[in-house]
């Protein structure tokens, strides 16, 4: 029987972790992830999980211990944000190249400096080449749902790659919403048991992890990882569909809204997708042909599906909550534009960097974006491709 509770994103993700009851969790506190781990620690102290909780002395040690635990042969989870993710950066690459199915919640917070504890995506965008699967959740419900799916995605035998699930710091993590929680048994059934591959604790088959891999073999090992990542999209969709069967909420890589006849569209991630959807709904009721695509799965990037949704769109605005300093466009923009390069129909694309360091974005701002896009259509020209939304000059 489903329970409905008012929970914020930290609470709901922690609840999901509790129901999964991972074998080992190694974590370190950082705003705005802290409440997630505090919740989990309380579950642990109350005996509601059997997890071995390692309260490590830094995020670098958190991910290091996760690597050790996962290689030992069990289910491992953790969570972090911002500087914590940055501190574990070198180990992220190791976790992925060792093909360890670790599941991590990342509560998006900007990377310093100067120090700022609020939301933007600079932290996880900085890890987009680390070989982790990246899934962005819009609200506390998705934070919960993604946490549960992450374990299945990571541990899929076609993959064995670590997964990070994102939610916007404070905006989602600390905002209470209505969340439908699945039954403990339903979650347990869905995630199932853990199947180890090459576990260190199998003394009869001793294995060496992490050799010195010189130029005569390293490339081949990387190819294996690249090959695995090429199967990730299929797995994310498969698990998203299966999750739909137990919850009534299925998930994919992209979530279009109003795209059936949209002439202008916004592509956006995470909580701002909610703001955008609400705006699109309002504008469409007034007869404007606007639409939006929420990107849920960012790594791997769902290029083919994206192209198929943009057939009739004239102008797109890609909203990025981080910038790529010195790059021609911010991360999501570059993925979208790149995806469309070979296509016959190439909509005009402009980039809006917004919300850095938690700068708020509201429906009024979304309306101005759509107004800008209309201006591009009517004038026939793009005066500026890279735009910054909400910053004071």
């Amino acid at each position, binding site marked *: 029987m489903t329970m409905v509770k008012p929970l914020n994103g930290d609470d709901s993700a922690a609840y999901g972790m509790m129901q999964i009851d991972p074998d080992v969790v190694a974590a370190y506190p950082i705003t705005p992830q802290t409440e997630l781990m505090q919740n989990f620690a309380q579950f642990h102290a109350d005996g509601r999980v059997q997890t071995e909780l390692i309260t490590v002395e830094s995020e670098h040690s958190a991910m290091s211990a996760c690597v050790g635990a996962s290689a030992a042969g069990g289910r491992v989870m953790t969570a972090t944000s911002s500087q914590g993710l940055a501190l574990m950066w070198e180990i992220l690459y190791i976790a992925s190249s060792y093909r360890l199915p670790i599941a991590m919640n990342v509560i998006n917070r900007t990377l310093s400096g100067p120090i700022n504890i609020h939301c933007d995506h600079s932290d996880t965008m900085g890890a987009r080449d680390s070989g982790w699967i990246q899934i962005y959740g819009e609200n506390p419900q998705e934070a919960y749902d993604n946490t549960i799916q992450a374990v299945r995605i990571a541990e899929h035998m076609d993959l064995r790659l670590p997964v990070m699930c994102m939610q916007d710091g404070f905006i989602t993590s600390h905002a209470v919403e209505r969340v439908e929680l699945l039954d403990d048994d339903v979650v347990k059934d869905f995630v199932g048991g853990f199947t180890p591959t*090459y576990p260190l604790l199998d003394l009869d088959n001793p*294995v060496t*992890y992490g050799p010195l891999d010189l130029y005569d*073999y390293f490339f081949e*090992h990387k*190819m294996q990882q690249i090959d695995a990542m090429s199967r990730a999209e299929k797995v994310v969709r498969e698990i998203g569909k299966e999750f739909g069967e137990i919850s009534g909420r299925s998930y994919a890589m992209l979530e279009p809204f109003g795209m059936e006849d949209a002439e202008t569209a916004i592509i956006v991630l995470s909580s701002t997708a909610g703001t955008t959807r609400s705006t699109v709904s309002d504008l469409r009721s007034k007869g404007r042909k606007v639409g939006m695509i929420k990107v849920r799965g960012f790594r791997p990037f769902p290029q083919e599906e994206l192209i198929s949704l943009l057939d009739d769109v004239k102008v797109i605005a890609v909203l990025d909550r981080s910038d790529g300093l010195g790059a021609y466009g911010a991360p999501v923009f570059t993925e979208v534009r790149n995806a469309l390069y070979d296509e016959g129909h190439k909509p005009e694309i402009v980039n809006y960097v917004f919300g850095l360091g938690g700068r708020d974005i509201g429906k009024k701002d979304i309306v101005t974006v759509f107004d800008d896009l209309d201006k591009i259509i009517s004038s026939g020209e793009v005066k500026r491709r890279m735009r910054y939304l909400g910053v004071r000059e």
Partner: protein
Amino acid sequence: MSEKPGWKKIPVAGLIVDAGNAREYKTGDWRTQKPVIDRDLCTNCLTCWVNCPDSSIIVEEGKFKEFDYDHCKGCGICAGVCPKKAISMVSER
């Protein structure tokens, strides 16, 4: 020289599943001098064995059997620690 295997043929993640297969790599050709034992002087104290960096002293039933010349790097530690001076290092040049 044999062709090295491609990425489809080797275990993932750089895992080495054949534990201890370093034995197949013959470090014996590093040597410029090799240890030689005078069995009359050897008392099988095994001091050489416990000090060998390369596990290259073969002991059988608690007695010195032979040097593993496939792997011995000729460091000379065994000759240095032997209390009976039963081991001498002989140049191989």
